[in-house]
């Protein structure tokens, strides 16, 4: 009888250990999935809230010949504060990715909704003709066409 009880005890402990293992793996997996859903929803909602508008007047000079600089004004027309750091504002001038960009908020400290930033794209060296600038912020894309 004692050997039967010992066997039952061993089987009982083994089953609990296996069940705990399965439960731990399962809850860990679901926890990771939940964290993923949380992060993704935050990111997507930020993208949905992001909206920018290029407000530069294409009829006025946008390109400065003497300094080879293109100056673009971009307004935050969305509902969330954006980061105006040039690392978060992607710029393509005539299809070429530009890194020589200076970004300044012209009417405040931060790029909040309704605030405007000035983007100065240096080393542009544009020839006479039509040009285009593509600005990408947080997944929102804007294209601005101008003539030099």
């Amino acid at each position: 009888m004692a050997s039967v009880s010992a066997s039952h005890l061993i089987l009982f402990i083994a089953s609990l250990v296996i069940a705990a293992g399965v439960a731990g793996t399962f809850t860990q997996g679901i926890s990771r999935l939940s964290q993923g859903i949380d992060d993704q929803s935050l990111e997507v909602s930020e993208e949905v809230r992001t909206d920018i508008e290029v407000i530069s007047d294409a009829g006025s000079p946008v390109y400065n010949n003497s300094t080879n600089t293109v100056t673009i004004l971009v307004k935050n027309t969305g509902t969330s504060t954006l980061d105006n750091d040039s690392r978060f504002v992607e710029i393509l001038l005539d299809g070429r990715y530009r890194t020589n960009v200076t970004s300044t908020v012209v009417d405040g400290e931060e790029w909040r909704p309704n605030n405007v930033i000035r983007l100065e794209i240096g080393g542009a060296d544009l020839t006479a003709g039509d040009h285009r600038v593509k600005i990408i912020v947080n997944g929102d894309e804007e294209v601005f066409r101008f003539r030099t």
Partner: protein
Amino acid sequence: MGFSVSGSAAIIFVAIFLAFSTAYTASANGFERMTDAKTAVDEEALERQNTALSVANVTYDGGTDTLSVDVVNEGTTGLSVNATDLLVDNAYRDNFTARRVGGDNSTDLWLPGEQLHLELTTPTRPDRVKIVSGPGVAVTEVL
């Protein structure tokens, strides 16, 4: 054996309960976040659709180097004076010497049908003036 099965089943049941409560909370929060964002964007789009501007008058007084701009809110939504931007020959200008709506220089509200008057000093006669409202709707005037 009965205890083993019951104990294991209890552990698995509790684990499933905890896991699904976590997943439900995350999904509900995510869904709510997305709904809020979508609602905000829809409201913004509606505001933009209801926004219209028209330039009533733009004059430059060479004697006093003063540029005067009068813009009428032709839409059906109230706009913010502080959120309205002025570009003079593509240069952002916010150093207004006067900025008023219907004679009131303290209000931020620019209501439908009202006229916004802007004045600023600029040494040369500008060629183009652009006024951009808060929702992004703009109007350009060539002098």
